């Protein structure tokens, strides 16, 4: 396992997937993100962790413009995020996202959940979209649920469908916002396995998660955030073995301590 993880970790290239420079964001008068600078290369897997309220969700939601930033630049796959609606839709179709609460569409079957965006955004013919959907549902190991509705699936299954739904758009970057924190331990493993598989195939990933085992195994870099700032970032080995900042030390001792 270790060897495999190491080889896949070297897969990152030199071309840039996401570049954030000097980004600041406020909610009203409260500054959530302070001077964020972050470069993510194609094929990199980044894990973002930090205490609750530190701005992790806000940061990755800025990357597909679910939240708007006020200062600085964010360039995703060569396109700068501005208030130009065309750019936003373009970037959103290149960036997949998985949410803590899955957010599947309850009125559509699993298959229709997966084909909706390819058909209406990418204009893929229905038949082809369904084939792609079945391919990815097989990949997340639930092809037999294709005709059910989200309400009939377990949490872990729903999250895997959500991953498959994003993958159907053939995104170049995947964002995960605590994809396992609403799940029971048993289901956490099945979702993490899916994500590990995705990582091994070289997908560019930004994951907000507290699953430190996952971080050690697949991340190229771990980013620690506190009070809206990036406090420390490093490769997993030194990050966990030899944290520098006191806040990081405290956080890691709390999360790994017991």
């Amino acid at each position, binding site marked *: 396992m270790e060897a495999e993880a190491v080889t896949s970790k070297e897969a990152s290239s030199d071309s840039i997937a996401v570049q954030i420079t000097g980004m600041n964001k406020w909610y009203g008068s409260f500054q959530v993100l302070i001077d964020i600078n972050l470069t993510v290369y194609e094929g990199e897997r980044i894990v973002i962790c930090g205490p609750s309220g530190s701005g992790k969700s806000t940061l990755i939601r800025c990357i597909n413009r679910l939240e708007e930033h006020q200062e600085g630049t964010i360039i995703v796959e060569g396109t700068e995020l501005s208030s130009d609606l065309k750019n936003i839709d373009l970037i*959103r179709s290149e960036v*997949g996202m998985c*949410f803590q609460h899955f957010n599947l569409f*309850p*009125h559509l079957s699993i298959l229709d959940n997966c084909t909706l965006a390819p058909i*209406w955004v990418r204009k893929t013919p229905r038949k082809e979209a369904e084939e792609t959907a079945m391919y990815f549902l097989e990949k997340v190991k639930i092809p037999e649920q294709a005709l059910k509705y989200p*309400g009939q699936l377990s949490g872990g299954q729903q999250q895997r469908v959500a991953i498959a739904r994003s993958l159907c758009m053939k995104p170049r970057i995947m964002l995960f916002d605590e994809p396992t924190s609403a799940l029971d331990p048993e289901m956490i493993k099945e979702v993490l396995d899916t994500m590990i598989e995705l990582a091994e195939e070289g997908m560019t990933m930004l994951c907000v998660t507290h699953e430190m085992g996952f971080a050690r195994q697949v991340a190229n870099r771990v980013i620690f955030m506190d009070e809206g700032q990036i406090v420390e970032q490093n490769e997993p080995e030194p990050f966990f073995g030899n944290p520098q900042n006191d806040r990081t030390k405290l956080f890691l001792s709390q999360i790994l301590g017991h």
Partner: protein
Amino acid sequence: MESAAFVRTEMAAARPPPSMDMGPVGWMRQNLFSSWLNSILTILALLGIFFALVSAAPWLIQSSWTATSLNGCREAIAEAYGEGTHGACWAVIRERYLQMFYGFYPRDSYWRPNLALVMLFVALAPVLFTSLPRRMLWFSAVYPFLGLWLLWGGSFWIVISILFGFFVGYAVLTILMRMFGQLAGVVGGALAAVLYWVILTGTVADLLHAVIPLGIEPVESARFGGFMLSTTIGVTGIACSLPIGILLALGRKSDLLIVKSICVGFIEFVRGVPLITLLFVASTLLNIFMPPGTNFDLILRVVIMVTLFSSAYIAEVVRGGLASLPRGQYEAADALGLDYWKSMRLVVLPQALKVSIPGIVSTFIGLFKDTTLVSIIGLLDPLGLANAIRADANWNGIVWELYVFIAALFFVFCFAMSRYSMYLERKLQTGHN
């Protein structure tokens, strides 16, 4: 003492569920007499039903169907069932039912509203039941023009000419879209269609009519009445108020300040004003604002007012549905790259409307019953006709029979709508959320 340890040696097989069939006595014990309170309520309710039936039945049954006046009725009933018997005088319905249905519509043209009604059901079927072939929706799309033409008559070329307006709009839209982009296309297309309808429809229809006369006898609005009038106003109002209401609800939630203010202002104004005042505005005031000589049909004015009125209510019902959706649904749609209209149409509205079905149908039922208010501005809907009939010397003094009849017919329509909404809710049920 028994040991706490337990190891199953053999797995038990699953069994079919226990039978729920408990026979009529068991059913009654469980549902009607499960407790003292329940038994008392059951008995009281049965007594209530019994007395209501006992007091109404003789009046309903010991009745006269054949007389030609109220006094005739009374004599016939006294003769048949003895002096002093109270009985219903159904003869008035027998004599006037055609008027109650069609108002003063020309008798030899009754087939036109009849055909329009049959075609209405054909047009509604594919809208209401998704299992029917989707191609039938084309008929539903053309029906509004066809149905209104059947009712009011006139040259058939008007229908063709109006439909041609859509074609004009679409042509301009595609051309402009290719040259200047989506926004210009939509605006230009809509503008072209409206201009065509306002300026050219009549002329084009007249020209075509001069070449090939094709049409049916026109019927003026003053002859419309009875249930035909209620249904015309009700169905048109329902069909128009749903889309307008949805747009108003979306507008009210919009980020665009102007759009939002207009929608909020409209909704709050219309909801704050009684329908009756709107109808009075339609019947009297509007004429003052119109250029002199314009003949703006009264029924059309009423339909517009009724539509505006109920679309404000629909908007609020739909807004409730929109608010009930978790924010995650909007975010997931955005994250997948769906634009505003697509995410509304494919993700948000199907769910919001499903939640709003009971409220929407209530509003429709209310609208349909409110069509009886038009009797106040002099239109001869069933209630207006009832007043006219009661003013007739022959039927002076008759009350119950007419209103029971009207109530029964309205009940059938409204109950059907209510049942349909329950069917729809059941059908759209998908899992536990």
